[in-house]
């Protein structure tokens, strides 16, 4: 049995939903699982960490994310606990942290995995924006993997309480210094973790019109996305862009409103479980890719859909 590790990501102290996917992957692997969590108080997170062998709580005077300190701390833990493989979430922080960790731990990293075989050190990830899948194997040294959110099924919690160990945060002077974190103006749903996304394209016509989608999103507790055409036209912020040069999302339900369905957009949302397209152009390519389509003007259809859902979900 090999020792494997997980990086449990907290966002402003909140346990990220995708950690459950990592934990499910690790529990199923049959290996000795070590979960590393940077926090002053472990108690709120312990119920989530059942059924694994060891929790390593990293403590320190200032646990605010500093990439060099976090990476060095994890590299030291990987060496001390002889962790053969180590996994994290392919999140904004994961993308920043794991390559640094790979370098510091002398390990090899495969990012954005859809499937990971921890025992065989193999992983499948999308390449060419999801037009193809590539299977990689890490041959020599330690293996790191980050896993795309919403892909690995979450298994119900089972098993006993883990053994708790502690480690100290690295106190070296970071080369890359985060001096300030600016929060988003409004608390938005994280698109990469969202279960439902409502997205608008060029046919939104104006920035103000995104309010129509916001209202639908509110009923569904969904995130709001946009196509590149909508972002380039200034109707939506670039943080909302879904597609090849934007975010890759993977929700249960993706509702594309007034989006034609160019390949550039499609590759960013094609793994959505169910795709709904609303477009007044019956020839729009999006209809070939959607599970359900409604031909009609989004400004008529979306408000009707909102009302119907409000009734249905009440």
């Amino acid at each position, binding site marked *: 049995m090999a020792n494997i590790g997980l990086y449990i990501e907290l966002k402003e102290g909140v346990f990220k939903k995708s950690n459950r996917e990592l934990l499910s992957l690790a529990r199923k692997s049959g290996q000795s699982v070590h979960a590393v969590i940077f926090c002053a108080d472990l108690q709120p997170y312990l119920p989530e960490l059942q059924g694994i062998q060891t929790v390593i709580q990293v403590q320190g005077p200032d646990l605010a994310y500093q990439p060099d300190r976090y990476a060095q701390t994890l590299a030291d833990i990987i060496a001390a606990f002889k962790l053969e493989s180590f996994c994290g979430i392919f999140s904004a922080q994961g993308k920043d942290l794991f390559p640094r960790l790979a370098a510091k731990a002398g390990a090899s990293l495969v*990012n954005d995995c859809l499937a990971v075989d921890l025992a065989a050190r193999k992983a499948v990830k999308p390449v060419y924006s999801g037009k193809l899948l590539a299977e990689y194997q890490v041959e020599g040294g330690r293996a790191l993997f980050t896993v795309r959110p919403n892909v690995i099924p979450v298994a119900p919690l089972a098993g006993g309480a883990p053994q708790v160990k502690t480690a100290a945060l690295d106190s070296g002077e970071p080369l890359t210094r985060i001096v300030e974190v600016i929060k988003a103006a409004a608390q938005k749903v994280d698109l990469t973790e969202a279960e439902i996304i409502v997205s608008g394209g060029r046919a939104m016509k104006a920035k103000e019109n995104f309010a129509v989608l916001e209202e639908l999103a509110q009923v569904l507790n969904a995130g709001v996305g946009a196509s590149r055409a909508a972002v380039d036209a200034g109707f939506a912020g670039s943080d909302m862009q879904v597609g090849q040069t934007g975010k890759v999302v993977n929700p249960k339900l993706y509702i594309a409103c007034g989006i034609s369905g160019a390949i550039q957009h499609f590759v960013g949302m094609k793994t959505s479980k169910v795709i709904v397209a609303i477009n007044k152009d019956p020839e729009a390519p999006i209809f070939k890719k959607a599970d359900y389509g409604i031909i009609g003007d989004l400004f008529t259809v979306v408000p009707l859909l909102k009302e119907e859902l409000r009734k*249905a979900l009440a």
Partner: protein
Amino acid sequence: MNIYVCLKQVPDTEASILIKDGKSIQEANIKWIVSPYDEYAIEEALKLKEKTPGSSVTAVCLGPERVHNALRTALAMGADKAVHIESNGYLDDQNTARALAAVIKADSAFGVIFTGKQAIDNDSYQLHILLAESLAVPVATNVTAFAVEGQQVKVQREIDEGAKEMIEMSIPCVVAAAKGLNTPRYASMMGIMKAKKIEIKKVTLSEIGIREDQNKVQLLKLSAPAEKPQGRIIPGEPAEAVKELVRLLREEAKVL
């Protein structure tokens, strides 16, 4: 300042990608472009050069002979020098980072190194950081604003949903560009003419001590993802269609 920009040549975003032999793709009908995020990197390098008297921009690209076109694009936009690291096989990210680092390290006065935040072929999201670690310099990823004050670089990077981190680091450093950093310029006719006259320096992997058998990450196989079966259009007036859609989402797709 000796400014560097590392770029990658990738298939055009609209290209359909077909598998050749399980491990590589058919290149015959592909139009090759500079990876879109690398264009932001080139533009930011040029802007820094314009603001910093006595600076030069060197573009570095690893790949087969065809990557000369990518380097010519960078030269036509305004880069001064170009280095081609010849590589015809598969190199993993660590090996690629070591190769780029070897070329840049040969210049003891390297300053800011720009790259894109990811190349849109392998989407491996790590080369820029491995490069920085290999050079033992700081790195900021997913950068949407960049400024230099003396020997310090100040950048803003996007994190989750509109939230941002402000980062400071000293030069030399690596900056990985994201969309929103700038609007890349088009090459002028004069730039294109000038670029043709600049000699591209060639470096072989053996000259810098990189071997393919040092790869630790092996590509086992490429495959095409399962295609979704075509869906259906829900007929009827909008009010009727919407009712039916909600029913289907609840009862058939079971996503609500």
